[in-house]
């Protein structure tokens, strides 16, 4: 078996030999030719088989003829110069970068192109006078780099990247270094003439550096502490804000009255380390988005039919412009963006992503079609019932859950610790001060501030960011991409896991097919395959894919009754393939079991033979996942599909699991809400748009995806489908992460006690504070990093074994 020189796939049915190389299809060969003819064959030297098979659909990008739409897509549009940024999910290697950045060799109208690999975008400057955007997109698609253009692109506001944390970190680090440097002479307390003379200059310089640290870099802590106090929560930022302000005020007073150097070095160091922790716990996956809604799934435009005096014309209309009563033309494999009535043609709509129903549904003209379905058989004509924002599906997004910030309700471990910590800290400070008031009044205030300074919970505040940040990266390496670190902490509290069925437990790529009935002869089998070959119905395609294709004959006659079945004739032998009612004309048996199962029935010369039954194929290790999960959590399955799979599912599920079918998107959301009111912490695992509400309502919503670059609904995390079996490990790892944080708390409390020893006795010198503070922070960072590294290794080990 040869492998394709372009895409590396095995050449199965067709092998094309060309230039001493093998290609699996014409598409791959064409790309090779284009690149070879234009001296771009370096593409193949850079990486082995770097290509992607181009799938090009005629007319898919016709909407780019509409200038309004192209205007929205272009970033810059002046005569002769256009700039566009396109998302290309297939970008995956350095060859991709190379060829996309050398597009100007293919067409001189392209001036420059620049790839952003992590984001999988290419930014192209071109001249639309010589090359329209449509042709540019077609060129890219022909090369196997088809841009993903969705409704979201039309509404995109130029979202500004928030870089303030980096600036704050930069300011703090800059000031920290300089203040350390300036306070060096005083650390050694050398009583030297010149040093004494220049002391005030050094000190005021330090003060100057400390100003932006306290008022710019540290601002967030004050804001957050204020917010916390106002809602009567003693969060971790309260003692930090106290620490920063005490450090700053005491140091300023010391400098003004020439009492000492102050603690500006400790203060800027503290802020620097805290911000570093904040920075570290952010791990962004540039190529993923956790905030997507239906807009990134829907197309940007559809074909609208205009009636002018009996002559029909087509135009590309923006989805937002569609009104009630408009006529639309939906081609094969196109998505219906509005609720509509079917007017003409045979609709076979795949709703699996929208409702969770596994099989495409046949609709007759006059029936309602809901937005979000994908047409599977030929073109249809529909009339718009409701515009896109008011459609049945998009209504889900008006649910309050999508506007609520549910992070606020979650109290993190750090915050709950900080309550006790702050109270005891204040208590110690007050007691120590009162004691010193009796011994030595002059030192009492010193002690009070020293306690507040040294106990500033830098190490505690760092424990969670570093542990969770590390786990975030470990999860990311194992293809569970988490939105932010607080999600991991929530994951450790999970006691109920809710699964969607279609697309989550089952794979979308494969179907298990089994035959029931009278065994077919060789002749009949070849008749069947020859007939199936001519059909475009998804079930026929998947059945055709598994059958033996040795004796394919030309059909004498072929008839397709869309939505019913197909008839093929060879040598006067007639075979009928399709639904039960189509195959068996006088069907008396209206067996419900036959109705609910997905099957292709076959009859030859009007004699019923049997049927191929399609089973949903479950992901690898579903049973293992259920078994290991059921030890610690409740398992629930909410499916939008019918009950056809119920019996089968029951066999792989643990006994006390809950199974619910025919669940609408709102039902799923409400079910989870209800469970949460009963005190459950719910992890929802889903995949489609119909799970979007449930994913948002649940404490942690993880969407599972075969290809993480393509659409997934808004969620807290995206799990690559191949890692489905690791769900249990991820949950237990997040629990271990929380344990590590607890140990780190104990660790940092020890440091605080040592520091308090100095403070309470009135011996806290700037140099001690300057050493103790970074030392405790760094040791916490080292401890959490090592601990998470070793726990993470278990995951490595486990996935290697299984």
């Amino acid at each position, binding site marked *: 078996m040869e492998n394709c020189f372009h895409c590396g796939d095995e050449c199965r049915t067709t092998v094309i030999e060309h230039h001493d190389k093998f290609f699996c299809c014409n598409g791959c060969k064409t790309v090779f030719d284009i690149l070879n003819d234009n001296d771009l064959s370096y593409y193949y030297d850079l990486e082995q088989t770097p290509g992607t098979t181009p799938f090009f659909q005629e007319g898919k990008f016709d909407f780019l003829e509409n200038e309004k739409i192209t205007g929205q897509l272009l970033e810059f549009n002046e005569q002769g110069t256009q700039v566009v940024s396109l998302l290309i999910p297939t970008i995956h290697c350095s060859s991709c970068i190379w060829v996309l950045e050398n597009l100007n060799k293919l067409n001189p109208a392209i001036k420059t192109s620049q790839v952003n690999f992590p984001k999988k975008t290419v930014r192209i400057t071109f001249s639309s006078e010589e090359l329209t955007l449509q042709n540019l997109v077609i060129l890219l698609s022909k090369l196997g780099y088809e841009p993903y253009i969705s409704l979201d692109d039309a509404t995109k506001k130029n979202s500004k990247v928030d870089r303030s944390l980096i600036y704050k970190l*930069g300011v703090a680090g800059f000031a920290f270094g300089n203040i350390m440097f300036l306070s060096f002479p005083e650390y050694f307390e050398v009583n030297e003439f010149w040093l004494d003379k220049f002391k005030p200059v050094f000190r005021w310089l330090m003060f100057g550096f400390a100003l932006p640290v306290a008022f710019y870099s540290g601002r967030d802590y004050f804001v957050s502490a204020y917010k916390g106090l106002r809602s009567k929560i003693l969060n971790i930022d309260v003692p930090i804000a106290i620490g920063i302000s005490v450090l700053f005020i005491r140091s300023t007073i010391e400098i003004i009255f020439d009492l000492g150097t102050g603690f500006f070095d400790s203060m800027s160091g503290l802020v620097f380390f805290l911000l570093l922790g904040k920075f570290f716990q952010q791990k962004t996956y540039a190529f993923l988005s956790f905030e997507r809604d239906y807009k990134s799934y829907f197309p940007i435009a559809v074909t609208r039919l205009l009636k002018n005096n009996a002559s029909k014309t087509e135009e590309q209309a923006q989805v937002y412009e569609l009104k009630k009563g408009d006529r639309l033309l939906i081609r094969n494999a196109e998505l219906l963006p509005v609720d509509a009535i079917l007017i003409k043609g045979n609709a076979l709509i795949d709703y699996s992503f929208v409702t969770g129903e596994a099989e495409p549904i046949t609709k007759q003209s006059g029936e309602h079609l809901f937005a979000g379905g994908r047409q599977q058989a030929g073109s249809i004509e529909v009339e718009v019932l409701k515009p896109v924002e008011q459609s049945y599906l998009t209504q889900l997004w008006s649910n309050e859950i999508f506007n609520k910030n549910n992070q606020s309700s979650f109290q993190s471990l750090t915050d709950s610790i900080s309550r006790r910590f702050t109270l005891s800290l204040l208590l110690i400070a007050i007691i120590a001060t009162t004691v010193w008031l009796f011994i030595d009044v002059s030192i009492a205030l010193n002690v009070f501030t020293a306690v507040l300074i040294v106990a500033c919970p830098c190490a505690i505040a760092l424990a969670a960011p570093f542990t969770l940040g590390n786990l975030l990266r470990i999860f990311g390496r194992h293809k569970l991409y988490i939105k932010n670190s607080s999600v991991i902490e929530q994951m450790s509290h999970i006691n109920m896991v809710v699964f969607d069925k279609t697309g989550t437990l089952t794979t979308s790529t494969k179907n298990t097919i089994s035959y029931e009935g009278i065994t077919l002869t060789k002749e009949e089998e070849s008749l069947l395959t020859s007939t199936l070959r001519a059909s475009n119905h998804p079930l026929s395609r998947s059945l055709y894919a598994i059958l033996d294709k040795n004796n394919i004959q030309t059909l004498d006659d072929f008839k397709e009754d869309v939505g019913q079945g197909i008839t093929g004739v060879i040598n006067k032998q007639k075979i009928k393939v399709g639904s039960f009612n189509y195959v068996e004309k006088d069907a008396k048996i209206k067996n419900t079991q036959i109705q609910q199962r997905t099957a292709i029935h076959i009859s030859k010369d009007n004699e019923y033979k049997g049927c191929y039954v399609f089973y949903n194929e479950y992901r690898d290790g579903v049973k293992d996942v259920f078994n290991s999960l059921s030890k610690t959590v409740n398992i629930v399955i909410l499916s939008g599909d019918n009950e056809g799979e119920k019996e089968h599912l029951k066999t792989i599920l643990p006994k006390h699991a809950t199974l619910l079918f025919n669940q609408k998107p709102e039902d799923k959301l409400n079910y989870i809400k209800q469970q949460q009111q009963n005190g459950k912490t719910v992890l929802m695992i889903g995949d489609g748009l119909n799970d979007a509400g449930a994913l948002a309502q649940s404490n942690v919503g993880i969407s599972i995806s075969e290809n993480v670059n393509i659409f997934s609904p808004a969620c807290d995390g995206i799990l690559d489908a191949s890692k489905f079996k690791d769900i249990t490990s991820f949950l237990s790892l997040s629990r271990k992460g929380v344990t590590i944080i607890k140990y780190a708390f104990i660790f940092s409390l020890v440091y605080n006690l040592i520091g308090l020893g100095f403070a309470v006795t009135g011996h806290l010198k700037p140099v001690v504070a300057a050493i103790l503070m970074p030392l405790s922070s760094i040791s916490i960072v080292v401890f959490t990093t090592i601990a998470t590294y070793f726990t993470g290794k278990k995951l490595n080990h486990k996935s290697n074994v299984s």
Partner: protein
Amino acid sequence: MNIIYMLLAISVIVALVFFTVFIFSVKNGQYDDMYTPSVRMLFEDELVKEKSDKQKNKSIKKPIIFKEQLK
């Protein structure tokens, strides 16, 4: 020893210059994509080599536009 005022001033100015350079580079988005430049850097040589090869038998090629070919 009064020279120390000048030295301090210089050291602070130098530090500030580097700091502003850092801020501006962040602002311009230089740190947004940390991966692609590292790959792109390695292409440069190959491109030059190919260009010189090409110069010899360079013919004016028709730009590729698929739309026209399809119709």
